[in-house]
């Protein structure tokens, strides 16, 4: 989907090995392995309470992991200094701060902390808040507030951007613009993006690779098509036969089936439709398999790139 794509040969921007996390008795992460490469957009999916925010916060250095190895931009997040912080941008799940500030004022102020910030006015235009520049932050709508959070997250030109459910509360147009923005950041500026989302379409559209976090483990990890292929759900082929009866068949190899149909029919086939399993099918399948306890943790680290 994206032209240059990530470079798997370089050292990963994020590397985690066997990370575990427990809140008292509650074990949230049971050994997570992650490699995220430069310029890659990486999506973390999982049901509510799966530990997505926890994972992101461990990588951001906001939370002390119970065990495991983590390197983010070459540094252990728990010991990251100001110079390291300056290379990272974040958008957290529920910020409601700086209510009294005006939009442009806040963005301009946060630009002063960074050596090479983006121009606040351009940034406002980029996230579509130019009309709200003079408005007080607590008068913004939920989606506008979120867009301001995104602007604040990238004002310092981060190399690595963490987005924790960035598009919650966006209307479809804002969502589309946000997707374009993230793609631009990754493709044109080489920003590495780690995002969590509940929107599977968003993950499929944006992410080079997707990981599903269920039951404290990463169940699968790979490109969106990898995931679809790995799912037990099979591609469905529908067509109408020469005698007018509707047929449907599930197959691992739709291309072969369609080729055979064509040969048998010696011509075009009516109502031919090949339906690949969607990411949603894969996702639901993973979550349910985890619920049944019939799962086997899939290896999370692999070099699968499109």
């Amino acid at each position, binding site marked *: 989907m994206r032209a240059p794509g990530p470079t798997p040969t370089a*050292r*990963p*921007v*994020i*590397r985690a090995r066997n990370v575990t996390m427990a809140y008292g008795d509650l074990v949230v992460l049971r050994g997570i392995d992650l490699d995220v490469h*430069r310029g890659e957009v990486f999506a973390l999916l999982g049901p509510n309470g799966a530990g997505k*925010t*926890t994972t*992101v*916060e461990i990588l*951001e250095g*906001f*939370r002390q992991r119970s065990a495991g190895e983590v*390197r*983010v*931009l*070459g*540094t*252990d997040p728990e*010991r*990251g*200094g*100001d*110079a*390291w*912080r*300056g*290379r*990272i941008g*974040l958008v*957290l*799940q*529920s*910020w*409601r*701060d*700086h*209510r*009294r*500030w005006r939009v442009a*004022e806040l963005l301009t*102020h*946060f630009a*002063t*902390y*960074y*050596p*090479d910030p983006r121009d606040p006015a351009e940034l406002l235009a980029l996230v579509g808040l130019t009309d709200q520049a003079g408005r007080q932050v607590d008068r913004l709508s*939920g989606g506008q507030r979120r867009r301001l959070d995104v602007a*604040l997250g990238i004002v*310092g030109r981060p*190399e690595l951007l963490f987005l*924790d459910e960035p598009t919650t509360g966006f209307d479809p147009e804002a969502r589309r613009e946000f997707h374009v923005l993230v793609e631009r950041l990754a493709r044109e500026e080489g920003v590495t993006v780690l995002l969590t989302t509940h929107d599977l379409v968003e993950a499929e559209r944006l992410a080079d690779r997707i990981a599903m976090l269920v039951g404290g483990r990463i169940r699968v990890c790979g490109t969106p098509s990898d995931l679809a292929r790995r799912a037990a759900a099979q591609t469905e082929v529908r067509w109408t036969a020469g005698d007018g009866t509707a047929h449907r068949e599930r197959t691992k190899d739709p291309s072969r089936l369609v080729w055979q149909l064509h040969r048998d029919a010696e011509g075009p086939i009516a109502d031919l439709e090949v339906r690949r399993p969607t990411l949603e099918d894969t996702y639901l399948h993973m979550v349910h398999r985890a619920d049944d306890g019939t799962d086997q943790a899939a290896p999370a680290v692999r070099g699968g790139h499109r």
Partner: protein
Amino acid sequence: MTDKVDAVDTADVAGMNDAPGGTAEPRRPTRPYWRAGLLRGGIELRHLLRNPKEMSGQLTNVVVALLIAAYVSGEVPGTDTPMAHLVLAGFAAYLLFQIGLISLPQMLVTEREEGALLRLRATPGGIPAYLIAKCLLVVVMAVGSLGLLVAATALLVDGPLPGGPGDWLTLLWVTTLGLLAVVPLGAALGAVLPNPREALALIMLPTMGLLFTSGAVFPITSLPVLVQQAAAVFPLKWMAQGLRSALLPDSARAAEAAGSWELPMVALVLTAWAVIGFLLAIPLLRRAARRESGSRLTARHRKAVRSGAVLA
């Protein structure tokens, strides 16, 4: 601080041969904290001045002071100093006390709960800038409200003023030391108190108790000895006494418990509180900043939404 942080960073990178990611790139220099801090302080101050609630609070203070001056009559027993002057000096001390122990913790708790502290923690140099901004804000608020009070009462109702350069000097150091005694303490409170509304309730009662037992609003000698001794542990009594020494003539000493202003003791107690405050505030603020995280923010937000306090 910059040096220390950089040293850790470099050591870490140097010690790791397999360091992934682009650490080889030239590290960008960190901006000086003070610039962002002063800018931030200026902006926060502007918001304060534009906030009608905050400003009407300040005006109320002045009105209360004027009412005190108008309604309190007679002299301090055994002296020819107007009783109103003694009360006004005590009220001035209370204003300082209140800025440090009510306004400041409220600001801190609110900003902590809303995530401002977290955002600054995620920003290079954000926390030092935040502290600088808050110091600036507190000093301006203290000087502003004290100045307003003294000037308004002196102009309108013949209120007390320092009698000479020595008294002005006393006013300066008592104010400074008084702020140093209460501001770190207030910061420590702001780091531990649960949420803005509860914080106010928890701080208000003890503060009011101190206000009435510290000899701030009427001569301390009229209170039981036990109460006097209890109040003498806390900074408000000494702030009030120090300000009385600066604002009242020396003849008013007769009404003091010790028969003198006890300025060395004022300095000693306020310094002791400043030290205690700093010792408490630094680890507590660290802990508060460390404990804040996105999930806590989310949990609080959800709770607030459920209880109907905030619209989702």
